[in-house]
């Protein structure tokens, strides 16, 4: 098959793009172009007009395109041509797109002044919801949220045969738009600390740093104290309890913005994750190292704070923040998102996220969650493994009739959605029989080989 070029190169049979879809594409491109031209400085005279019109055009255009694309076909798995399309199979367009996003992240983190005009375009919106001028992070947050809303809607249309996907994706959009965008903005409008109720330690590593805790508790009013209480409660009580009942998915694929972007904007790239045993080995030492690092750093900071700086002195906080920036921001942003079209969507979640590591340990050892394999019905086709964004070789379990109990599984449910034989099911069930390493492949009971 490798010698047959037509299967790996770009799609020789482009699917029909009709007039309505083309109109949508034109509007989308016009909006994008307007935004780019306005950010050269020409839009500064009428920032309201340019910002809102360009966003309205591109979002509207994208909606027209996706609604037309998916609603004209019966509901069902829509993965045709994924591996024949350059953008979604590491072709030329994938590399171009990857370089553009990576470049955007580099500029955003290290050269934000390059984006000055683009940031100024966001001023009217920022003033409206935050009561102050925009900065690079507001620009980033706005684009991020728009990506989740637009591509989330697309994901809902694409997976509309699955109620699990419809509800889960709606939850992602809700938490991003509300908890990770509007609420922190409105808090600032009322002169409160910018706080993200949907992010907790150890992902938001500094939320349990002594400095953050003292800043918040010293805020006038009770809200700061509540924020500290909320953060601690979510990390140490809600997370273990919710994970016990539902698995880590309650967070990773229902609430978290990183997972949210992966499951919406990143959905076209989910099949690119590395499924090899080697990748799994690297994943295990890497992700748990990050968790250990954050736990150690946080502990040291508290010890240091208890002894009033006697242990680490004043450099400790800066040290922690630099490392946090490298891991949390650069890894999650530049590699985590920038490399979507090359390495798949969950690179950060899989190799770097300390929250995922923490949730993973809970899921593996203290949870009712598992993906159940339906007896002997697996045909080893490989759709489940191919479309697993976490690089889990789902088929390796399913074809043996084993349940899938893996620390890394984020419970997105796509394996069960794309399985052509209805073999997989995400379930929260009794602990007994959750891990079945030696199942009988039903239909062949007499031939049980017990090894």
């Amino acid at each position, binding site marked *: *098959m490798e010698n*047959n070029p*037509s*299967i*790996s190169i770009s*799609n*020789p*049979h482009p699917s*029909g793009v009709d007039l309505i879809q083309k109109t949508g594409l034109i509007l989308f491109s016009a909006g994008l172009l307007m935004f780019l031209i306005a950010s050269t400085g020409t839009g500064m005279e009428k920032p309201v007009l340019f910002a809102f019109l360009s966003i309205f055009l591109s979002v509207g255009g994208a909606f027209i395109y996706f609604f037309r694309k998916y609603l004209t076909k*019966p*509901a*069902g*798995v829509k*993965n*045709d*041509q*994924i591996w*024949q*399309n350059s953008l979604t199979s590491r072709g030329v367009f994938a590399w171009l797109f990857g370089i553009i996003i990576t470049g955007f992240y580099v500029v955003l983190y290290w050269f934000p002044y390059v984006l000055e005009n683009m940031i100024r375009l966001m001023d009217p919106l920022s003033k409206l919801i935050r009561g102050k001028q925009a900065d690079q992070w507001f620009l980033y947050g706005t684009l991020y949220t728009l990506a989740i809303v637009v591509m989330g809607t697309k994901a809902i249309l694409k997976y509309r045969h*699955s*109620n*699990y996907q*419809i509800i889960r994706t709606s939850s992602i959009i809700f938490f991003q738009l509300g908890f990770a965008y509007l609420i922190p903005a409105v808090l600032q409008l009322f002169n409160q600390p910018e706080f993200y109720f949907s992010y907790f330690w150890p992902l938001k590593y500094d939320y349990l740093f002594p400095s953050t805790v003292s800043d918040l508790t010293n805020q006038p009013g009770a809200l700061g104290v509540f924020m500290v209480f909320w953060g601690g409660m979510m990390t140490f009580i809600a997370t273990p309890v919710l994970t016990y*009942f539902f698995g880590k998915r309650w967070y990773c694929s229902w609430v978290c913005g990183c997972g949210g972007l992966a499951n919406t904007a990143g959905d076209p790239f989910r099949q690119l994750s590395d499924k*090899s045993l080697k990748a799994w080995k690297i994943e295990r030492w890497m992700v748990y190292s990050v968790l250990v690092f954050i736990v150690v750093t946080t502990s040291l900071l508290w010890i240091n704070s208890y002894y009033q700086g006697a242990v680490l002195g004043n450099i400790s906080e800066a040290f922690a923040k630099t490392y946090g920036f490298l891991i949390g921001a650069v890894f999650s942003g530049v590699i985590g998102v920038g490399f979507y079209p090359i390495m798949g969507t969950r690179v950060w979640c899989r190799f770097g996220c300390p929250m995922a590591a923490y949730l993973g340990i809970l899921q593996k050892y203290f949870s*009712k969650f598992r993906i*159940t394999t*339906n*007896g*002997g*019905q697996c*045909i*080893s*086709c*490989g*759709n489940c493994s*191919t479309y697993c964004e976490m690089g889990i070789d789902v*088929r*390796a379990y399913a*074809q043996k009739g084993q349940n899938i109990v893996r620390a890394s599984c984020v419970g997105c449910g796509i394996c*069960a*959605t*794309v399985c*052509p034989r*209805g073999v997989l*099911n*995400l*379930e929260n*069930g*009794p602990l007994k029989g959750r891990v079945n390493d030696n199942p009988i*492949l*039903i*239909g*062949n*009971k*007499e*031939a049980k*080989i*017990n*090894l």
Partner: protein
Amino acid sequence: MKETIDIRKLCINNMGKNIVIVGNGISGITCARHVRKLSKHRITVISSESEHFFSRTALMYIYMGHMKFEHTKPYEDHFWEKNTIDLIKKFVTQVDANNKLVLFSDGSSINYDVLVLATGSKSNKFGWPGQDYKGVQGLYHLQDLENMEENTRGISNAVIIGGGLIGIEMAEMLRSRKIGVTFLVREKNFWDNILPLEEAKMINRHILEHHVDLRLEAELKEIKGDSNGRASSIITNKGEEIPCQFVGLTAGVSPNIDFLKNSDIEIDRGILVNNFFETNVTDVYAIGDCAQFRVPPAGRKPIEQVWYTGRMQGEVLAKTICGERFPYSPSHWFNSAKFFDIEYQTYGIVNSQLSENEQTFYWEHSSGKISFRVVYDKNDKKIIGFNVFGFRLRHEVCDEWLTQKRTVDYVIEHLPKANFDPEFYRKYEPEIIAQYNKQSGKNLKLKARKGLLATFLK
């Protein structure tokens, strides 16, 4: 556990046998894997189709772009060396049973102590005029897929002959590339020699929804070609000419055993075996699509051409090879398929026509894409089989109910226990039981619930 130790001992005592398996499909590979689990025998797997085992059922997804060939390989390439299973990519032309030799097309050969034939099937061709034109093909082997890629490049219209599982897969493949498809089905409804009327009609409708020109009770009379020797149209039994550039022949498959025609191994349609998969020649076995039972197990067909049965047969034979002679005695029948967007599962026996002693209950959702059927004994009401479309059932529960010979009333009442649909899916059991009560005049109530509350209670 005690039994396990015994098997291992036997195998270790027996180690060093040279086991040659012809065919690296699901049957041959399952056999090889289980022999390796149980013993240190030398294992060699021969195939001319591909270097490594791949999932044949996934071929359609390669064409449609859901996967690449590498994704259809269930084991990473280092698996075979790690498990000391030797792989040879050669074409077998003959078996010399007297000298225990397998001969290859390149003139070389390999000797064996134990030979397992797991050579699968080939597409049926019934001698239609024009069946050898370019652009005319079946779909079974990897090479068929490569040909299909070539044969369908840039074409606008295709005709598929034969209304079975491969036919509808081929229709879905071609439609994914916007190629017009005319689908000739000999029967009155799609696959109605297997499916009961209601389900067959449901799939008829769904085929039309996907813009396939479904022609029922239509047969192929002749394929016409152009001056380049390429198919240009077909003529049906009704005399209609349908222009096309591709003809898919999907009227079933038959055992791939031509290479045995002059050997001592007894064949009929397939390689004749007893229920230990033993052929008439000592130390030669046959499993999977290519094997034909002299006396089939109760309720089974003489040739089983299904992924699941191939896998079971490979597992059973491994035991016999490793010293514990073990008969094939499969449990309840099960199977699954997907017709475009509609999933199908079956457990137990559901025939297209009810037999004398059978009755059935059938429910269909108003969408016309979801259904549930149970077939049961007219007299004692004990269940015989299930068919579900667009609705997933739990294999374990269905299998248990069939073993326990539950009554139809019990099954309808406990249906939520067998529900395998994902979370947040609509529950159909209330509708099903309401219709059952209406038709039977009974007043059954659902016994189990599945939902958020149950999550906490479990």
